[in-house]
């Protein structure tokens, strides 16, 4: 059993002043095994902050990141192949077919992307595509109002993934649980 934090699109300081205080309370060091960051952290200070949550930090570069990071990663986590990419490279943005193609190219069981600033969990064939949304609810050009701040915890256990979605709605943290079992590879 491995607990993985998926987080991204903080956009601090470009588009947000801070993480929500309630998220900071939840993201205490010592609970998370591995952190996957889909990019657009945008400042070294907050990259360092993510590192305090778990030393095992995997980060890809978003379009507004200036630190050195790969564009995409494929990780082996508890028997899953986890692909990570920010997603601004996927054209058209957020397009399910384009995302599926990328997932197929990366041969990932789980593909984690960001960019749209909206939480999303989608099953495509035997694969799971996950977007943790923006942890700060940052502005997005394609959005229409303030985005809902969110992040995701994945509990990887054998062939089972439990996804916990944390969203800040009306000042309160709401948690949703989604179960997913690994299918046979397509």
């Amino acid at each position, binding site marked *: 059993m491995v607990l993985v934090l998926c987080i991204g699109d903080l956009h601090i300081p470009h588009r947000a002043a801070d993480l929500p205080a309630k998220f900071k309370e939840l993201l205490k060091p010592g609970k998370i095994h591995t952190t996957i960051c889909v990019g657009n952290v945008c400042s070294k200070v907050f990259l360092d902050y993510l590192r305090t949550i778990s030393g095992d930090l995997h980060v890809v570069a978003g379009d507004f990141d200036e630190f050195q990071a790969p564009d995409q990663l494929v990780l082996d986590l508890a028997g899953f192949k986890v692909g990570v990419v920010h997603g601004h490279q996927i054209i058209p943005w957020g397009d399910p*077919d384009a995302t599926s193609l990328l997932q*197929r190219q990366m041969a990932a069981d789980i593909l984690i992307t960001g960019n749209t600033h909206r*939480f*999303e969990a989608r099953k495509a064939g035997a694969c799971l595509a996950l977007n943790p949304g923006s942890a700060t609810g940052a502005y997005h050009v394609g959005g*229409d109002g303030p985005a809902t701040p969110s992040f995701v915890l994945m509990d990887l256990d054998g062939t089972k993934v439990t*996804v916990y979605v944390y*969203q*800040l709605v*009306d*000042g309160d943290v709401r948690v949703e649980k989604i179960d997913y079992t690994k299918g046979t590879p397509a």
Partner: protein
Amino acid sequence: MDNVAFPSADEQQRILNDASTAIKRSAFLMRKAIEDDNMRDSLKHAAGMLAELRTSQLQPQKYYELYMLVFDQLAHLEAFFSDERGKGRSYAELYELVQHAGNVLPRLYLMVAVGCLYIKSHEASPRDVLKDLVEMCKGVQHPTRGLFLRAYLCQRAKGLLPDTGSQYEGPGSGSIQDALDFLMTNFIEMNKLWVRLQHQGSARDKEKRERERQQLQDLVGKNLTYLSQLDGLGFELYRDQVLPRVLDQITSCRDDLAQLYLMQALIQGFPDRFHLGTLETLLGVLPQLQPGVKIHSVMAALMDRLAKYAASAASGSNDPRVLEELAAIDAFSKFKEAIARIIASQPNLAAADAVEMYTALLSYAGSVHPGVLSFVDEVLAAAHSTLGDRGRGLGGDARAERQLMALLTVPLNKYGVSACLELKEYPPLTRLLRYVMHKELAVKLVHKVLDTVAPSAKSGNGASPAAGSGVTLISTVDKVSSLFRFIAPLVADPDVPGEAGGVAEMDDEDLDEEQVLVARLLHRLRSPDPDTHFAILKIAQHQLLAGGPRRLRTTLPALVFCGLELHRKLARPLARAPAAEAAGKDKGVEETIGKGRDEAAAQDGEGVATAADGEVMEAEAPAPAASVAAMEQSAPAADTKPAVSCEELLQFLLAGIEPLYGGPAGQPVVAARLLLACGYIASEEAHLELLSYTFFEEALTLYDEALPDQRTRATALYDIIGYLQRCRVFGPEARDSLTSAVTSACMRLLSRREQCRALCAAAFLWWQPLPGASSLAGRSDGEKAATGGGDRGSADQGEAGGQKEAAAEVQPGLYPPVRDGDKVVAILQRATKVATQAKAQYGATGRVRDASYLGAYLEVLDSMMRFWDSEVPGVDTTKVQDLIDKVQADLAAGVQPDTATARRWQSTLSYITTTAQQPHAKERYGKLKLPQAT
């Protein structure tokens, strides 16, 4: 006897040891005599034991050890006296008997011991015995001996005073007045002895002696403590008798140590409401104290005490009228005047000490008058007039500067940052700090804005936190201007030439860390009224530009996004509700997993709606002290059309990004992305073709001229395509110019495979999503229909309602989605050609292992299949089959692909196989001929 040096420490220790042994021996004999019921011997040995306390050779600390030894043994004797009375011997008789002791000191100790038992037995009048004892003790005038003797008297008598309501009160036995007189006399006598103690010992180690003397202060203070504990001590008695006599003793003793200690004991010892009623007297005595007394700490203690009292009263646990009383006697002004008098009367007062008093006064004002900001300004002005002529850095007085920092931090904590921005006297005072210290303060302030979690309940006109979120927003033009004065050192270099700490001395990393704070702060500067918000952004831009290029690198991008957020408010004033609908609507588009996705989508909508409420709550609470201008600016703008237009805002942003293009602030990569974001917004929100074109044009120019390396260029190209792909404001000509610029940029990438990949992405420029077909586009359309394109004010505004249905097809200011199969096919063919060129290159070089050109084919194949899936006209089975055959033929001819390419080829093949088995795709995919299974 005074002014005699003590023996050396070793010698004293020897004397102490000898005396202790003697005491223990006498005590042993005394206890034996007690056992034998022998009164005469008991008294004899007790006197012998007490006689050891007659020494003058010991310093007070060593003497204290001796005293404690004796004190414990006296308990046995007192018990014996009680027993004796049971056997018929009266206390009157005993009181007589002990007076036969030969030496005065033992005699007085024994008299106190018996006298107190005498009172306790009610056989004697407390008044008479206490008076007798307190007077008799005057017989011992040696400071150490007298002090301890009276400490013993005080300690023994405290429960036996004829206090109001006590069993020792009565017409014959005495009243509160007698109790009070006893303690006052003892206090005065002890204080005199204590003050005289300083003359004991040699003059050399005065400091050490004073330290020792300080350790005895509580012996004296005990009298005041017992006084304050008298039930009969009402306010009048305190005001008329205790306070004048104590103050008289304090002033007349002319001793620094005693004055400081006793003033503090007085303030801490007696109830707050007593101080409230005698504040003037108390403050009046301060300037009369010795110049060496740390009056500032007395003042600070008094103000802190009353502030705490008021705070506890305000919270309801105490008398709620305290605040009114403090206001009624105008305690604030009294304190302020007292401070001024002290500063005037003590020319040598350290600057730090003066500032400490003002700090305490500020805390006091914050607790007692939380809503009155003018008091803060008064204090700050007073502090400035005290310190002003010392200049920047307070003439190098580091302690004073630190204290000034503490002073300047108080209002931030007590009133909140937003309220403090109205303080006129604050910035002048900060200018007395050195640049580096002021910057430290500025950092504190910024953190205060960023970290505010819960709004302080009592800050009446304080911050304007958005309801529930606890976020501090600075929302008027005046306050924002003021804020930039407050945090000046974070925004610009020192204005005093040559002062340390400027940007030239900082390395990039430190500077960036610091400027990230400023950039984060920008998001907290906003108003619900678009015009005010725009004015705020202009002020911010002006200030940031003044800070020079190295700061701009970090702060400008944040400013641009603040502008884009404002743009959304301008372009879509009523967007929230339909946005929620759209969010709910598009959940059906994708295959969703379980109920979580549904709920998440629903919550998303909810989140949007509540955030809209939050914005309304952001409106400034009317602040009493707010200027007229601020009031005007914060007027709600719900009904009136903002003066600022989308066009003006976008022009502002276009100019705003420019410093990042190149030169010292050059961040061409970031600048290009900001331009793209703005270009996208100009198209999709503002529907301004020419402006949008300009943004894209500048971005493409930067791409051509300023992007440093291949990888950056390749990545940036996808960004350009990503943004442009969704833009629908462009007419055919503009589109052609932009898309051909993009395709030629694709062709200028170095590697053929990269060219292929980029071209395949660029093909989507000719195949825009239908409204509602994907989440992002769907949302934007839903909302446009509902708002009727109000920001454009275009001809079709009136038909907005009727157009609702049709809006999915044609929107005002936007062209229908471009879906040009011929163009798509043309680009894909071009990509195929590039792949063919790559193959030719392979053939020319003859590098057997370099079969990466196959990857180029695979890029085209995958894209071709996606367009084929989407049934783009002109993309037919033959074109897909052609590509499969090409790859297959080369593989059959023995080309060895690298592992990644081989894996990708396999994944494409198995995708085709799997899809062909699914009912909905069987027909299409079944037509494809795949190579024999490998």
